[in-house]
Protein backbone atom coordinates (compact mmCIF):
# COMPACT_ATOMS: atom_id res chain seq x y z
CA UNK A 1 0.00 0.00 0.00
CA UNK A 2 1.54 3.30 -1.14
CA UNK A 3 2.70 5.89 1.36
CA UNK A 4 1.84 9.57 1.17
CA UNK A 5 4.20 12.29 0.05
CA UNK A 6 4.24 16.05 -0.38
CA UNK A 7 6.68 18.14 -2.39
CA UNK A 8 6.60 21.75 -3.45
CA UNK A 9 8.26 24.08 -5.91
CA UNK A 10 8.03 27.87 -6.04
CA UNK A 11 7.66 28.68 -9.73
CA UNK A 12 7.52 32.43 -9.09
CA UNK A 13 7.33 34.77 -6.13
CA UNK A 14 3.54 34.43 -6.05
CA UNK A 15 3.15 30.98 -7.65
CA UNK A 16 3.65 27.68 -5.88
CA UNK A 17 3.16 24.10 -7.03
CA UNK A 18 2.41 21.47 -4.38
CA UNK A 19 2.56 17.83 -5.45
CA UNK A 20 0.67 15.29 -3.37
CA UNK A 21 1.05 11.57 -4.01
CA UNK A 22 -0.09 8.29 -2.53
CA UNK A 23 -3.05 7.75 -0.26
CA UNK A 24 -4.98 10.71 1.15
CA UNK A 25 -6.76 8.65 3.79
CA UNK A 26 -6.84 9.23 7.55
CA UNK A 27 -3.25 8.03 7.98
CA UNK A 28 -1.87 9.82 4.94
CA UNK A 29 -3.57 13.13 5.67
CA UNK A 30 -2.28 12.94 9.23
CA UNK A 31 1.23 12.77 7.78
CA UNK A 32 0.98 15.75 5.43
CA UNK A 33 -1.83 18.00 6.71
CA UNK A 34 0.20 20.51 8.71
CA UNK A 35 2.79 20.87 5.98
CA UNK A 36 0.15 21.15 3.28
CA UNK A 37 -1.76 23.85 5.15
CA UNK A 38 1.45 25.74 5.80
CA UNK A 39 2.51 25.57 2.15
CA UNK A 40 -0.91 26.22 0.64
CA UNK A 41 -2.52 28.81 2.85
CA UNK A 42 0.12 30.80 4.70
CA UNK A 43 -0.02 33.84 2.41
CA UNK A 44 -1.86 35.25 -0.59
CA UNK A 45 -0.51 33.49 -3.65
CA UNK A 46 -1.47 31.30 -6.58
CA UNK A 47 -1.29 27.64 -5.62
CA UNK A 48 -1.36 24.73 -8.03
CA UNK A 49 -2.12 21.48 -6.19
CA UNK A 50 -1.01 18.54 -8.31
CA UNK A 51 -3.11 15.46 -7.48
CA UNK A 52 -2.07 13.36 -10.48
CA UNK A 53 -0.11 11.00 -8.22
CA UNK A 54 -2.87 10.53 -5.62
CA UNK A 55 -4.02 6.91 -5.62
CA UNK A 56 -6.80 7.21 -3.05
CA UNK A 57 -8.78 10.24 -1.89
CA UNK A 58 -11.05 10.02 1.14
CA UNK A 59 -13.24 12.74 2.63
CA UNK A 60 -10.54 13.55 5.19
CA UNK A 61 -8.31 14.52 2.26
CA UNK A 62 -11.09 16.57 0.70
CA UNK A 63 -11.58 18.42 3.99
CA UNK A 64 -7.88 19.21 4.12
CA UNK A 65 -7.93 20.64 0.59
CA UNK A 66 -11.17 22.61 1.11
CA UNK A 67 -9.92 24.02 4.41
CA UNK A 68 -6.73 25.35 2.80
CA UNK A 69 -8.53 26.58 -0.33
CA UNK A 70 -10.93 28.60 1.84
CA UNK A 71 -8.13 30.06 3.95
CA UNK A 72 -6.18 30.94 0.81
CA UNK A 73 -9.26 32.52 -0.77
CA UNK A 74 -9.86 34.64 2.33
CA UNK A 75 -6.30 35.94 2.06
CA UNK A 76 -6.78 36.89 -1.58
CA UNK A 77 -5.01 33.91 -3.09
CA UNK A 78 -6.30 31.21 -5.42
CA UNK A 79 -6.03 27.42 -5.58
CA UNK A 80 -6.36 25.24 -8.67
CA UNK A 81 -6.30 21.45 -8.71
CA UNK A 82 -4.40 19.52 -11.39
CA UNK A 83 -5.67 15.98 -12.02
CA UNK A 84 -4.24 14.77 -15.32
CA UNK A 85 -6.15 11.58 -16.18
CA UNK A 86 -6.73 10.56 -12.57
CA UNK A 87 -10.31 9.33 -12.95
CA UNK A 88 -10.54 7.91 -9.42
CA UNK A 89 -9.85 11.29 -7.83
CA UNK A 90 -11.97 13.10 -10.44
CA UNK A 91 -14.96 10.93 -9.54
CA UNK A 92 -14.61 11.73 -5.86
CA UNK A 93 -14.26 15.48 -6.48
CA UNK A 94 -17.31 15.51 -8.75
CA UNK A 95 -19.44 13.44 -6.38
CA UNK A 96 -19.08 15.85 -3.46
CA UNK A 97 -19.18 19.00 -5.59
CA UNK A 98 -15.60 20.11 -4.96
CA UNK A 99 -14.96 20.49 -8.68
CA UNK A 100 -17.73 23.12 -8.69
CA UNK A 101 -16.04 25.33 -6.10
CA UNK A 102 -12.31 24.77 -6.75
CA UNK A 103 -11.13 24.87 -10.38
CA UNK A 104 -10.03 21.44 -11.62
CA UNK A 105 -7.76 21.12 -14.69
CA UNK A 106 -6.50 18.15 -16.68
CA UNK A 107 -3.15 19.59 -17.72
CA UNK A 108 -0.60 22.06 -16.43
CA UNK A 109 -1.21 24.64 -19.17
CA UNK A 110 -4.91 24.82 -18.36
CA UNK A 111 -4.11 25.03 -14.64
CA UNK A 112 -1.75 27.95 -15.21
CA UNK A 113 -4.39 29.70 -17.30
CA UNK A 114 -6.97 29.16 -14.55
CA UNK A 115 -4.61 30.59 -11.96
CA UNK A 116 -3.95 33.62 -14.16
CA UNK A 117 -7.67 34.24 -14.70
Amino acid at each position, binding site marked *: *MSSTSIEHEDLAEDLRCIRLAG*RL*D*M*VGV*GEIEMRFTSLAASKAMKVLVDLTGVS*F*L*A*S*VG*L*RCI*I*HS*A*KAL*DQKGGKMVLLLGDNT*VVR*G*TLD*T*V*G*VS*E*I*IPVCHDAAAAMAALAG
Partner: protein
Amino acid sequence: MSCLEIRAEAPELRRASAWLQEHGERLAVPPDQIDRLEVCLNEVLANLLEHGGPPVGSQPIRLQLDAITRAAGAGVRLVISDGGLPFDPVVASDKPLPASLSEASPGGLGLRLVRAYTDGMAYRVLDDRNELSIEMHWTTRS
Protein backbone atom coordinates in the same frame (compact mmCIF):
# COMPACT_ATOMS: atom_id res chain seq x y z
CA MET B 1 -17.50 -15.26 2.29
CA SER B 2 -14.46 -13.40 3.64
CA CYS B 3 -14.13 -11.93 7.12
CA LEU B 4 -11.70 -9.66 8.92
CA GLU B 5 -11.53 -8.23 12.40
CA ILE B 6 -9.75 -4.92 12.98
CA ARG B 7 -9.14 -2.63 15.91
CA ALA B 8 -10.62 0.87 15.97
CA GLU B 9 -7.32 2.55 15.10
CA ALA B 10 -6.38 4.65 12.07
CA PRO B 11 -3.60 2.35 10.75
CA GLU B 12 -6.10 -0.51 10.69
CA LEU B 13 -7.98 1.28 7.90
CA ARG B 14 -5.16 0.41 5.54
CA ARG B 15 -5.26 -3.24 6.60
CA ALA B 16 -8.98 -3.19 5.90
CA SER B 17 -8.39 -1.62 2.47
CA ALA B 18 -5.78 -4.25 1.57
CA TRP B 19 -8.16 -7.03 2.67
CA LEU B 20 -10.99 -5.56 0.58
CA GLN B 21 -8.82 -5.22 -2.52
CA GLU B 22 -7.53 -8.80 -2.18
CA HIS B 23 -10.87 -10.44 -1.51
CA GLY B 24 -12.80 -8.24 -3.92
CA GLU B 25 -10.47 -9.42 -6.66
CA ARG B 26 -11.07 -13.04 -5.61
CA LEU B 27 -14.80 -12.45 -5.92
CA ALA B 28 -14.25 -11.01 -9.42
CA VAL B 29 -15.48 -7.54 -8.44
CA PRO B 30 -14.59 -5.13 -11.30
CA PRO B 31 -11.62 -2.91 -10.37
CA ASP B 32 -13.54 0.35 -10.49
CA GLN B 33 -16.20 -1.12 -8.20
CA ILE B 34 -13.56 -2.31 -5.74
CA ASP B 35 -12.12 1.21 -5.71
CA ARG B 36 -15.52 2.70 -4.94
CA LEU B 37 -16.24 0.09 -2.30
CA GLU B 38 -12.87 0.87 -0.74
CA VAL B 39 -13.87 4.54 -0.50
CA CYS B 40 -17.12 3.51 1.20
CA LEU B 41 -15.34 1.20 3.66
CA ASN B 42 -12.81 3.89 4.46
CA GLU B 43 -15.51 6.49 5.05
CA VAL B 44 -17.57 4.25 7.31
CA LEU B 45 -14.53 3.26 9.37
CA ALA B 46 -13.23 6.83 9.59
CA ASN B 47 -16.68 7.92 10.79
CA LEU B 48 -16.56 5.22 13.46
CA LEU B 49 -13.17 6.38 14.67
CA GLU B 50 -14.30 10.01 14.79
CA HIS B 51 -17.82 9.59 16.16
CA GLY B 52 -18.13 6.07 17.57
CA GLY B 53 -17.29 7.23 21.08
CA PRO B 54 -15.47 5.25 23.76
CA PRO B 55 -17.43 2.03 23.14
CA VAL B 56 -16.06 1.58 19.63
CA GLY B 57 -12.57 0.89 20.93
CA SER B 58 -13.65 -1.79 23.37
CA GLN B 59 -14.67 -4.35 20.75
CA PRO B 60 -13.23 -5.36 17.38
CA ILE B 61 -14.80 -4.07 14.19
CA ARG B 62 -15.90 -7.01 12.04
CA LEU B 63 -15.93 -6.89 8.25
CA GLN B 64 -17.59 -9.40 5.99
CA LEU B 65 -17.58 -9.51 2.19
CA ASP B 66 -20.02 -11.70 0.26
CA ALA B 67 -20.77 -12.19 -3.39
CA ILE B 68 -24.39 -11.62 -4.30
CA THR B 69 -25.88 -14.37 -6.41
CA ARG B 70 -26.56 -13.63 -10.03
CA ALA B 71 -30.31 -14.14 -9.54
CA ALA B 72 -30.31 -11.01 -7.39
CA GLY B 73 -27.97 -9.16 -9.77
CA ALA B 74 -24.20 -9.66 -9.88
CA GLY B 75 -22.73 -7.75 -7.03
CA VAL B 76 -21.16 -7.75 -3.65
CA ARG B 77 -22.27 -7.05 -0.09
CA LEU B 78 -20.02 -5.57 2.58
CA VAL B 79 -21.15 -5.81 6.20
CA ILE B 80 -19.49 -3.66 8.87
CA SER B 81 -20.27 -4.51 12.49
CA ASP B 82 -19.07 -2.40 15.42
CA GLY B 83 -19.71 -1.73 19.08
CA GLY B 84 -19.72 2.06 18.83
CA LEU B 85 -22.46 4.57 19.53
CA PRO B 86 -25.56 3.85 17.42
CA PHE B 87 -25.70 5.76 14.14
CA ASP B 88 -28.02 5.02 11.23
CA PRO B 89 -26.53 6.48 8.03
CA VAL B 90 -29.52 5.29 6.05
CA VAL B 91 -31.81 7.92 7.59
CA ALA B 92 -29.17 10.66 8.00
CA SER B 93 -29.74 13.46 5.50
CA ASP B 94 -27.15 14.88 3.11
CA LYS B 95 -26.16 18.51 3.35
CA PRO B 96 -26.80 20.48 0.14
CA LEU B 97 -23.83 20.85 -2.18
CA PRO B 98 -22.04 24.18 -1.64
CA ALA B 99 -22.53 26.85 -4.28
CA SER B 100 -19.22 28.54 -3.53
CA LEU B 101 -15.99 27.97 -1.67
CA SER B 102 -17.09 30.30 1.11
CA GLU B 103 -20.22 28.17 1.65
CA ALA B 104 -18.33 24.86 1.70
CA SER B 105 -18.42 23.04 5.02
CA PRO B 106 -16.16 20.13 5.85
CA GLY B 107 -18.85 17.86 7.29
CA GLY B 108 -20.97 15.27 5.52
CA LEU B 109 -18.65 14.58 2.60
CA GLY B 110 -18.03 10.95 3.56
CA LEU B 111 -21.69 10.07 3.85
CA ARG B 112 -22.38 11.68 0.48
CA LEU B 113 -19.67 9.53 -1.09
CA VAL B 114 -21.09 6.35 0.47
CA ARG B 115 -24.60 7.15 -0.75
CA ALA B 116 -23.39 7.95 -4.25
CA TYR B 117 -21.22 4.86 -4.64
CA THR B 118 -23.53 2.18 -3.21
CA ASP B 119 -26.68 0.65 -4.67
CA GLY B 120 -28.19 -0.32 -1.35
CA MET B 121 -27.61 0.33 2.33
CA ALA B 122 -29.25 -1.21 5.42
CA TYR B 123 -28.65 -0.62 9.11
CA ARG B 124 -29.72 -2.49 12.23
CA VAL B 125 -28.66 -2.98 15.82
CA LEU B 126 -27.96 -6.63 16.56
CA ASP B 127 -26.75 -7.90 19.95
CA ASP B 128 -25.83 -4.34 21.00
CA ARG B 129 -23.70 -3.85 17.89
CA ASN B 130 -24.28 -1.63 14.87
CA GLU B 131 -24.47 -3.56 11.63
CA LEU B 132 -24.26 -1.65 8.36
CA SER B 133 -24.71 -3.56 5.12
CA ILE B 134 -23.84 -1.92 1.82
CA GLU B 135 -24.33 -3.42 -1.62
CA MET B 136 -22.94 -2.76 -5.05
CA HIS B 137 -24.20 -4.20 -8.31
CA TRP B 138 -22.54 -4.10 -11.68
CA THR B 139 -25.23 -5.65 -13.79
CA THR B 140 -28.92 -4.86 -13.77
CA ARG B 141 -31.14 -7.11 -11.72
CA SER B 142 -32.89 -9.79 -13.76
